[in-house]
């Protein structure tokens, strides 16, 4: 029913989205913690910067990525020297997907950290736990549902990301052609509607499955936290 190109697109999308989430999640937790628990000059600035991909047109984000991480970009050039290349590679698609999903992850996690009473962390400190131990043993388990929600949002955003990806890494079948790019490509050629519709159904199925799994997981986590 699905041709090889479609399977490639699905596999690539999953690879890109999983990579994007795996790499951005630890950073998202750290940034969310800083935004939730620390007050410093530049707090509002950091928050604005994190949320920028949410408000900028994706094509602008993609173009900025191209400027920075392209082969001649100021970061991309330096990284190319050590063998890391983003431009027109699936890694670039993952970078774009990670950045576009980042604000969603940070928001969900930051809200859940703010919901944890800092007095519990104080109690952990009086029991001998340093700041890191208190975070790992008290805060982290309590924000599990928030992390899960952030992960699902980030993953869904990565699966659906189109504008920044196509601007940054183009639409190369088997290389950078994710599901949305493939749908776009099918719609641009005469008689491609049938293939496009199959990919639309596939894409929707993956999204719905992700939401169902996360619902089930978050219910289990909530039960465990409430005891």
């Amino acid at each position, binding site marked *: 029913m699905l041709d090889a190109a479609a399977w490639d697109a699905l596999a690539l999308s999953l690879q890109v989205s999983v990579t994007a989430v795996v790499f951005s999640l630890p950073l998202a937790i750290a940034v969310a913690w800083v935004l939730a628990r620390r007050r410093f000059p530049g707090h509002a600035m950091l928050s604005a910067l994190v949320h920028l991909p949410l408000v900028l047109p994706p094509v602008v984000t993609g173009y900025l990525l191209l400027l920075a991480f392209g082969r001649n970009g100021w970061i991309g050039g330096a990284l190319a020297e050590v063998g890391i290349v983003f431009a027109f590679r699936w890694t670039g698609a993952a970078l774009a997907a990670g950045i576009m999903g980042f604000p969603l992850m940070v928001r969900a996690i930051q809200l859940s950290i703010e919901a944890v009473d800092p007095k519990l962390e104080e109690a952990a400190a*009086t*029991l001998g736990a340093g700041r890191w131990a208190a975070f790992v043993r008290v805060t982290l388990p309590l924000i599990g549902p928030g992390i899960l929600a952030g992960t699902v949002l980030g993953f869904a955003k990565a699966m659906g990301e189109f504008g920044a990806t196509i601007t940054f890494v183009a639409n190369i079948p088997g290389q950078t052609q994710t599901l949305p790019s493939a749908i776009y490509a099918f719609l641009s050629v005469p008689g491609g509607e049938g293939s496009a519709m199959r990919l639309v159904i596939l894409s929707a199925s993956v999204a719905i499955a992700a939401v169902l799994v996360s619902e089930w997981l978050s219910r289990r986590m909530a039960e465990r936290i409430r005891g």
Partner: protein
Amino acid sequence: MSLTFDISHRFGAFQLEAQAEAGPGVTALFGPSGSGKTSIANAIAGLVRPDAGRITLAGDVLLDHARGVCLPAARRRIGVVFQDGRLFPHLTVAQNIAFGLRYAPPAGTGNALGLDAAAIQEMLGIGALMQRHPASLSGGEKQRVAIARALAMRPRLLLMDEPLAALDGPRKDEILPYLERLRDSRAVPIVYITHSMAEIARLADRIVVLREGRVLRAGDVTDVLSDPAMVPLIGVREAGSVLVARVVTLNSGGLSRLAISGGELRLPGIEAQVGKSLRIRILAQDVLVSRTQPVGLSSRNILPAVIEAVHRGDGPGVALSLRLGEDRLLARITADAMDELQLAPGVSCYAVLKAIAVARADIGAMSG
């Protein structure tokens, strides 16, 4: 093993300037809300860094502002029991209690507390709760678990910040005997923060009286509570002295006889064994004073006494301390009566106490 603190801290219009020390046993920090009790507790625990000052525990410097020393809370080894318990909701009771164990020194080393996990469970009566989660515990059970958690880390000091304030009357009465056992185990010095004179009368050896961020008085509970000059600070309805009495004969249905240094008390509702010592709080407003030995009076307790000190306040009342053997009894009478009976320091009199005036909650156990 003693704690000393001398700290000053300012937030908004409130200025804290407090200096005191706490030795072995239970030291109560007493004052109304806003007197600086919790600020002092947070400074001792290391949760707030005061603007200036010095705090030492058993000779170790916890804070020395002048030298820039401020040990983080995690390294002070002060067990804290908060008013709101603060149990970790995602952990079972057993896991909550074990939380601090990995940071504690091994049992039996240094100045580690001489209570093992089994003894703590026994003393606080929480053995049956170990697999439960905090959400399923009653308020009193939560506080007992919080105390166990603070003790399990082998603290050098137990700091209790209004541990009973969030509980209703019956729950308080449920926990007080556990706290008495903890005190009498002498396992760890305790700083007990409260605005309840009833808890102090039951538990404390020493008291530090705070008002508006300053220490007004510090000393032995029996001395401070029987000082007539303290009555306005403690509150006229709360003021009362604490006596130690030994059970002589027990009559659980009626009046039991108890020996005090200056005679004998007869009180109802005593449940301790013969020979046991009890701490009894007698409210100043429940004591009458007579110049002559009263006859034909319903009161079961008429004790010869000598007036030791008098404090005349702004209101119509006068506070007297009466010496009874080694003990002092606080009495509150009207200025009118005082003048008519010509009461003054050195005058002999009789202290009269209604047997049923002493509430059961004001009778506490003590070791020895």
